[in-house]
């Protein structure tokens, strides 16, 4: 038992060490060229704002959308921006858009590292500073909405918020990996498939899906889980769902999706070990 605990402790320490190192690399990258850092921050900020501004202006114009008031929508948009911000913070360098690495034949760079793949995947993309510009607008919008709604929240609620945020992020990542695994089989045509998968969730995650028909809504909660990225968890967190248990749906779905993603990725990896990649695209190996 003690040996097992010791091994877990060592693993956690290693993850922390690697996170610190990659955070340092991220800092170095940004401060080595101030002009580029400013351009980068501005573009990230513009992207974050750009992804929500359309719906915000629309909501402003029509004083909300359906049953969603402006403040509800601020929370929804804030939450959805935060989910993407978390992904960009923890899984940068094409680790969330995994089909790029697989499709470009660049998984070899991962395989020559003396570490388990899972550890590389959860550490190598850590870029806390680069991801900041996605997180800040999200936090501001979320806070603005909550203040506007005037709800009183306890510590348990905040814990559930963090749990749901990470669950939503896991769902997005898993969706990218499930589709991205196709790049093992068809590297060229699937090189950008994770980007397409991500774009689908990213573009639609800001919309309230309340009025959709059963079949479409069902699809958007399962096969293309747009609803689980922001809409459903925010409804649950704001108490708009009838059941209190609904707050656990997103985390449970995240576990399920993660299982499928692992299965697909490991299957693909097995295939990769037998076929390798006949394609190497030298677009900067960790581009």
């Amino acid at each position: 038992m003690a040996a097992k605990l010791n091994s877990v402790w060592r693993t956690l320490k290693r993850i922390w060490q690697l996170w610190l190192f990659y955070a340092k690399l991220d800092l170095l990258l940004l401060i080595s060229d101030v002009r580029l850092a400013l351009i980068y921050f501005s573009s990230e900020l513009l992207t974050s704002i750009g992804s929500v501004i359309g719906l915000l202006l629309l909501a402003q114009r029509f004083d909300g959308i359906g049953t969603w008031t402006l403040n509800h929508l601020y929370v929804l948009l804030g939450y959805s921006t935060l989910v993407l911000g978390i992904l960009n913070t923890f899984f940068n360098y094409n680790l969330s858009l995994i089909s790029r690495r697989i499709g470009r034949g660049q998984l070899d760079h991962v395989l020559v590292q003396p570490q388990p793949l899972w550890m590389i995947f959860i550490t190598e993309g850590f870029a806390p500073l680069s991801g900041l510009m996605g997180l800040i607008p999200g936090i501001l919008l979320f806070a603005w909405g909550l203040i506007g709604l005037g709800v009183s929240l306890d510590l348990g609620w905040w814990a559930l918020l963090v749990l749901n945020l990470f669950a939503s992020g896991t769902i997005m990542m898993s969706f990218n990996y499930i589709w991205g695994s196709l790049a093992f089989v068809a590297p060229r045509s699937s090189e950008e498939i994770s980007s397409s998968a991500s774009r689908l969730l990213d573009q639609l995650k800001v919309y309230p899906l309340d009025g959709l028909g059963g079949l479409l809504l069902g699809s958007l909660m399962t096969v293309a889980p747009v609803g689980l990225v922001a809409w459903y968890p925010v409804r649950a967190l704001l108490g708009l769902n009838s059941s209190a248990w609904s707050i656990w749906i997103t985390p449970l779905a995240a576990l399920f999706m993660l299982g499928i993603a692992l299965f697909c990725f490991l299957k693909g990896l097995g295939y990769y070990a037998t076929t390798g990649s006949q394609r190497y695209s030298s677009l900067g190996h960790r581009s």
Partner: protein
Amino acid sequence: MIENGLGQQTIIRRGRWTRRLAKYAKTASMAASGYIGDSPLFMFDYVMRVLRVLVLLSIWRIVLSEEGASGLSLQAVLTYTLISEVFFSQLNPRTSMEDAFWQGTIAGRMAQPLGLFEQFTSETVGRWFFEWCCFSIPLVLISPLLGVNVLPASLGAGLLFIVSLLLAVSVGLALEYIFCALLVIWQLPLWVMLQIRSAFITLLSGAMLPLAFLPDLVGEIFSWLPFASMASAPLQIYVGAGNTLLLVLLQVFWSALLWPLAHWLWFKGREGMISYGG
């Protein structure tokens, strides 16, 4: 028989143009067939776009009553949204030029006996043909199932839409080449330019959200910018909204202004282009 020098010249010129068009057509067909060289997975993007349009149509049905708003009926907004998706690639034309920069193949492109704009435009148009067959036409065909009337407001609107669409493509391509030139001149990383461009165009072109639905002053300002000539203008003409003549004139104006600017920027950034392209 060629009887005089003038006649001969005309024939030679025609031959030259035929040859040139053949080059464009070959480039376009290579680009179109290149899509299907691997596997049918590229269809994935199309499925996603269908989902996106379904969600957007539902949102409009929630937000708007039958009368609509800002002079646009609900049915007109649904048509606007669907047509915007049908002509998505023409209303936001993207060439593979950025990729060529990123992969360092731009220098090799210059060794081809075709202008750079011509090469990339031919390829882009080739890919459009493929997309029309696999996505746009099927989407138009299923539109009655989605409860959307896909026909233009009138025959005249339909004809003018074609003119306006061509002008929109012209403005869009000019902006594409300007963005690429700026990428080189300012030596920006590619993804930065793509992000900025995407953030601007999504909102300012009116492809996703009719500019008429934006807060008054904001919508008014946006409608005068070149981005509005890329999507908002032809879509408004299609659904019979807005001042048609003004919209087309504005497109002509931006097209006439942006192409010389694109050429000038490329001339200015020529040196940097080679070093950027490795």
